[in-house]
């Protein structure tokens, strides 16, 4: 494979597959608000691993992972037990279980290290921060099979997982065994966490579940697409992180992989067109500009032929904002400038009438129904006919014309 040694290829496919399954399963964990449970699971798995080692007295991977799985699940059960039977809230319960189990694991680890009788004690430490480089073919097979099982389960139970993640109460009423489906989801999370421990480590594993899912959420409002994107982001995170660690062999695997994931997350957060920060900042700016343009139109409608200075004084807008709005309106042929004075074109007058009508009708509506204003996501002055039912608009029109008749008289 030229630049890619056999060893690197093994590690690369292992971490990529791990990333894919983490992204897929992690999406449900994040949407179900169980992201921190994944973190607790990863930390709580660590002492189980140590106990398994003490029992077996050797480094037998499947045995170690079984121990990790059992203590991880036990930790999660303990969290829900604490939450249910005491007044401790979930976040506090997670905090307690996570640190106590992890602390126990560290103590066990130091006991193991003091036992000189055990031969291959070295290596357990790598489960804290991960050592992807140590991956062998059978590890990849294990990760691959978990990946296949989880993907099949999600394909098969997509509808059920979606429903239970969105509205468990409704699912219960429909007769779904919500607890069992939830348990299925959590088991997938637990399996993913446990197979990820050798490569990424207990401390970093939760990020592997959360980051790809959180990044994917910025790009789409559709669950199926989010799952796909999250799996792709996870794969990229695992692969690029591994390449970085093999290139610079001093880097620890887990933290490096997570930093690559964080970079993907940052890019998504900033640049995603659907929900990214820059896109929403742009939309907000555009909306504000629209509001200023509407105000200028309304102003020129009521008082035509104004100079820039006069317009500036009429309202508390900045000179730059007004300038931008006027430029845009002139470009759109809504406003003409003659002898330093601005006035409306025919098209501009039409637009201004719509705006003025919208503003006045909304003001009347809000005055009549103050309790309802919180229910409207957009009080856009130009779409009042789409938002309100026709008979309400008609009623408002009547009120408006009688009000203006009154002001004339």
């Amino acid at each position, binding site marked *: 494979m030229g630049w890619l040694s056999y060893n690197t290829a093994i590690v690369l496919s292992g971490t990529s597959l791990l990333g894919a399954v983490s992204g897929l399963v992690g999406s449900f964990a994040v*949407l179900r*608000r169980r992201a921190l449970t994944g973190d607790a699971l990863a930390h709580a798995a660590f002492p189980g691993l140590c106990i398994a080692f003490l029992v077996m007295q050797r480094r037998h991977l499947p045995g170690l992972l079984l121990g990790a799985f059992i203590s991880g699940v036990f930790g999660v059960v303990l969290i829900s037990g604490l939450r249910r039977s005491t007044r401790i809230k979930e976040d506090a319960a997670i905090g307690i279980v996570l640190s106590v189990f992890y602390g126990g694991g560290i103590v066990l680890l130091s006991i193991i290290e003091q036992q000189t009788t055990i031969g291959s004690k070295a290596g357990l430490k790598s489960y804290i921060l991960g050592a992807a480089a140590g991956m062998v073919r059978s590890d990849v097979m294990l990760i691959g099979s978990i990946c296949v099982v989880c993907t099949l389960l999600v394909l*098969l*139970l*997509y*509808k*059920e997982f*979606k*429903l239970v*993640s*969105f*509205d468990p*109460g*409704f*699912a*219960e*009423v*429909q*007769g*779904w065994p919500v607890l069992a489906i939830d348990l299925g989801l959590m088991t997938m999370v637990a399996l993913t966490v446990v197979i990820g421990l050798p490569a990424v480590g207990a401390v970093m594993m939760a990020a592997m579940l959360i980051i790809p899912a959180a990044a994917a*959420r910025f790009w*789409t*409002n*559709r*669950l199926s697409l*989010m799952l796909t994107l999250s799996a792709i982001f996870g794969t990229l995170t695992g692969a690029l992180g591994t390449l970085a660690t093999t290139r610079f062999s001093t880097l620890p695997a887990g933290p490096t992989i997570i930093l690559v994931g964080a970079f993907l997350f940052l890019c998504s957060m900033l640049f995603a067109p659907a929900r990214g920060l820059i896109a929403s900042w742009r939309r907000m700016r555009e909306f504000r500009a629209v509001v200023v343009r509407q105000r200028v139109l309304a102003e020129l409608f009521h008082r035509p032929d104004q100079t820039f200075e006069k317009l500036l004084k009429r309202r508390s807008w900045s000179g730059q904002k007004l300038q931008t709005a006027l430029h845009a309106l002139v470009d759109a042929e809504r406003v003409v400038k003659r002898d330093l004075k601005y006035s409306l074109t025919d098209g501009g007058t039409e637009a201004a009438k719509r705006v003025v009508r919208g503003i006045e009708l909304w003001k009347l509506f809000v005055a009549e*129904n103050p*309790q*309802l204003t*919180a*229910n*409207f*996501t957009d009080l856009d002055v130009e779409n009042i006919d789409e938002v*309100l*039912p026709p008979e*309400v608009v008609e009623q408002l029109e009547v009120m408006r014309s009688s009000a203006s008749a009154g002001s004339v008289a």
Partner: protein
Amino acid sequence: MSQSPQQTGAVLDVHDMTVAYRRKPVLWDIDLIIDEPGLIGIVGPNGAGKSTLIKAILGLVPMASGRVSVFGGTIRENRKLIGYVPQRESVDWDFPVSAFDAVLMGTYGALGWFKRPSRKQRDWAMECLAKVGMQDLAKRQIGQLSGGQQQRVFLARALAQKARLYFMDEPMAGVDATTERVIFELLRELRDQGCTVLVVHHDLRTVASYFDNVVLLNMRLVASGPVATTFNEDNLRKTYGGRLAILDDAGEAVRAQERSS
């Protein structure tokens, strides 16, 4: 009143229901029988256990004691006959599904395990969205809808369940006039089709015009029966106590009802 609901198959029979959170009882010895289809309003002050009553009937919160039957069977046996509109605050509206997806979930119960919704379910979900006047917003992510529109999505999802008995938890809380009208017309339509709808309702002024029967609740069942005979000042005083502002409202409602009848 029927003696044995198992034989007659009353729409809903709640017997001796007590619900307790930790050590504080929320509902005490509720006995409630609904024999005939109709629109039923559940009314009572905040913390009276209105939502809890619905949730306990549906098995969403455990009962300390009591028995519930619908159409002569257990809730579990008759799940497919039951529709549910939870409180709007009960879900995360940022969840990545569209209005259409959310309504489609109403068909999942009848579909059963593993099966994906087909053309038939999709058409039906769209029809339900149209019934609440939301067909144009089908593709919108649910978080981008207004409060009233979200409430209508929940209602359309319940319609998609094709149930005979609906439980609705404050479907008209904080909604706009359009939505309230849409909801009320749908409720009437459901009643005319022979369905029973139990609605947790907070606005005493509209009780008389919206519902056939009323259930007055305050930890215990104060009264239940036809609005004309049950929704009176005496029962309201027993339900709300001496809270004057509310009683004024209620009194006005009762008088309005007397005028209209």
